[in-house]
């Protein structure tokens, strides 16, 4: 039955592609200045978008099915449990300047990636396997990459590795992706043109991409972006806010699409770091599991979804959202909203509600501050809703909005905060991408970072399970380990997971073949097959 459905879908897709016209210019926005066009130095969202549109990779994660698909590698084989990976390369492929693509380019890219002088953020996930890499080229179309130690799910990491040319005089500006950077006007726009040497063809043998060019306006103000979209000046919007989504829905109901839960949960945590400059009695509250679970039970997650996200969110149970189909632990349910349960847990932990004020065993009134970043309206609304929810159990919450850099300074350096409300951006579906959060020795183990040894037995257990899943051979066994990690996190609540916000996009009706996905880059992940209707196809100026 599934095969028949897939066959029908592919027939429909082929028909729509056949009907899709070639040419035209697609326009959408980047929300900040791209910091680099070097595919291995990407560290910001705008550069990542440009890399996705221009760089060729060996293996691509299909954003819709979340499965791996061959790109510049026709096939691959993971060897020695993830210690090595062998690629069979596609023949007859050329960079955007006509330079042929060879195995030497893959070797050059991997050497550059691991070059300590380059400091590539893309290399960080690979470094879990050591800081060295060995490249073998047994034949013209075969490359074997060997790491110092085994790395589970290593093949997925190649989705982020844009292949560089070892011989092109244009260096990193010679690309293997569907588009190439034609012009960059700082502060204004990035203009991408069709790569005439792009290797992919559609079912009818036509060379992709269909579009002639992309014009990416650098536009920080999302309201202006929405106005421009409504005027027809833009064709796509990704990561649309709930307010804008509802406004657009009124004016262009067919353009907006709610894709369901994204990979970006909103969460709250308490500062449990022993060295944090906050009173000891507050640290004792934050270290109490009963206190954390009580506060989780006191938060009405349904209201957060309904009021802060206008219904475009769902209550979160853990670190992995249902959007991550394989790694999501479906047995976990969000902590139930129950103020009586919250008070019972607090009583068990020695807290007492007196005249509407919750006090600990020493008589200290329970009051603490919650920092969150200013300017994120859904998050600010979440903070206000939580403030009222906690007021109902006698807790006074002082919400402090700070600029993002000030928050990062407090989280990563001074540790001068009590509780924090932020979102997590999961760019990697694999749990190895979260190693930097779950290992107790990690810097991003936010509630108590950089521990020399695990501070609690359950953190030690998480450390053990994360390492075990990293070295397990089969995906099934890895899932068993990571499911257990999610269960411990659910039970101990070092992070109070609040909501999984939905992925919201807007796509003009002029855009053909659009199949938006929750994974970034959402609306334009299939950029090489997107097309514009004839009446709206704009010629390149």
């Amino acid at each position, binding site marked *: 039955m599934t095969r028949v459905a897939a066959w029908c879908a592919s027939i429909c897709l082929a028909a729509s592609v056949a009907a899709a016209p070639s040419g035209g210019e697609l326009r959408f926005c980047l929300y900040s200045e791209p910091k680099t066009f070097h595919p291995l130095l990407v560290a910001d969202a705008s550069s990542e978008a440009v890399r996705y549109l221009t760089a060729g990779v060996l293996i691509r994660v299909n954003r819709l099915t979340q499965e791996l698909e061959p790109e510049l590698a026709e096939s691959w084989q993971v060897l020695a449990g993830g210690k090595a990976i062998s690629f069979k390369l596609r023949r007859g492929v050329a960079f955007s300047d006509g330079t042929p693509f060879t195995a030497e380019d893959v070797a050059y890219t991997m050497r550059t990636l691991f070059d300590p002088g380059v400091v590539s953020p893309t290399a960080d996930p690979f470094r879990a396997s050591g800081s060295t890499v060995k490249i073998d080229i047994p034949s013209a179309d075969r490359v074997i990459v060997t790491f110092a130690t085994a790395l589970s799910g290593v093949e997925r990491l190649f989705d982020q590795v844009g292949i560089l040319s070892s011989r092109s005089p244009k260096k990193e500006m010679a690309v293997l992706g569907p588009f190439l950077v034609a012009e960059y006007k700082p502060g204004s726009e990035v203009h991408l043109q069709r790569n005439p040497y792009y290797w992919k063809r559609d079912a009818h043998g036509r060379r992709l991409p269909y579009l002639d060019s992309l014009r990416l306006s650098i536009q920080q103000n999302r309201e202006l972006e929405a106005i421009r979209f409504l005027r027809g000046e833009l064709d796509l919007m990704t990561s649309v806010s709930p307010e804008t989504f509802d406004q657009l829905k009124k004016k262009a109901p067919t353009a907006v699409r709610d894709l369901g839960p994204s990979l970006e949960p909103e969460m709250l945590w308490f500062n449990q770091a022993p060295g944090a400059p906050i009173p000891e009695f507050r640290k004792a509250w934050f270290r109490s599991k009963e206190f954390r679970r009580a506060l989780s039970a006191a938060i009405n997650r349904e*209201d957060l979804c309904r009021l802060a996200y206008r219904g475009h969110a769902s209550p979160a149970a853990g670190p992995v959202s249902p959007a991550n189909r394989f790694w999501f632990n479906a047995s976990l349910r969000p902590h139930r909203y129950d103020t009586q349960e919250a008070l019972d847990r607090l009583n068990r932990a020695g807290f007492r509600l007196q005249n509407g004020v919750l006090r600990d065993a020493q008589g200290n009134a329970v009051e603490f501050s919650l920092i969150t970043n200013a300017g994120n309206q859904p998050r600010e609304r979440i903070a206000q809703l939580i403030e*009222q929810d906690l007021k109902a159990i006698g807790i006074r919450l002082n919400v402090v909005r700070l600029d993002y850099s000030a928050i990062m300074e407090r989280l990563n350096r001074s540790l001068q905060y009590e509780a924090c409300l932020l979102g997590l951006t999961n760019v990697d579906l694999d749990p190895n991408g979260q190693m930097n959060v779950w290992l107790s020795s990690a810097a991003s183990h936010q509630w108590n970072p950089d521990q020399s040894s695990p501070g609690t037995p359950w953190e030690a257990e998480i450390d053990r399970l994360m390492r075990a899943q990293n070295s397990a051979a089969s995906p099934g066994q890895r899932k068993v380990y990571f499911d257990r990690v999610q269960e411990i996190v659910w039970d101990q609540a070092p992070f109070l997971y609040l909501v999984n916000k939905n992925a919201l996009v807007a796509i003009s009706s002029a855009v053909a073949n659009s199949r938006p996905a929750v994974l970034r880059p959402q609306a334009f992940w299939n950029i090489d097959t997107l097309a514009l209707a004839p009446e709206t196809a704009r010629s390149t100026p």
Partner: protein
Amino acid sequence: MTAVRWAAGAVLALIVLAAVWPAAITGVPYDRQFRDYPNAPMSRQFPLGTDELGRDRLSRLLYGARVSLLAAPAAALLSSILAALAGGLAGYAGGWYDCLAGGAIDLMLSLPWLFLLIIVRALLPLNVPALLSLLLTFGLIGLLGWPSAARVVRAACRSLRDSDPVLLAAACGIPEARILWKHVLPNVQPILAAKFWISIPVYILAEANLGLLGLGVADPLPSLGNLLRQLESSLNPDPGAWAPLVLIVVVVGCLQIVRPAEAVVR
């Protein structure tokens, strides 16, 4: 014209009364969330509708007006007094006073206040009571707002110092303090008055902007500034969301009408 001034005065009096005693108009607390009625339209229950968290816009407007219409004029008064002192001293006394005050003005105008305010926020504890946060915010605004006006006052005092009436008064042996009080101050008063009135709406908005640095009036306590922020994030805001803007326009307009004619700079 008198009738218009009386009408403007009456409107102002009503607004001030409502802001000082909001409980007389609405019994709804400004922070109460009617979660079943988010973004409700105007109705008898909610005359200005509700915001996205179901909070009564009228109640928040009245309490916000109390905060902003008391604190912003106080900050404007503080900066006007500082401008009068620094600018007056520099312009009238001259010499090294002028050098010192001129240097202070130039320094204040050239400092990167954004970064300094971020440092101020970093030095403050996170658990600051709402009233203290309010006083700090408007106090900072008042302390930082004087230099541009001080420059104008300084120039005015310098020309007054050499004017015939002041020279004649000095020649007659009138004490310096009396000359300042009777001859100089009345002549710079229109400048200071203009500075004062212009500063009020500017400071209301400045408070909202400081909110982005964690320094503004902390939610859930409303201010006209943070209520205005609702307008900047919506393509098509509810009619009730415009009320803070209308109130500021009405208040500033009425203030312009009722203030004494001689205070107008010509």
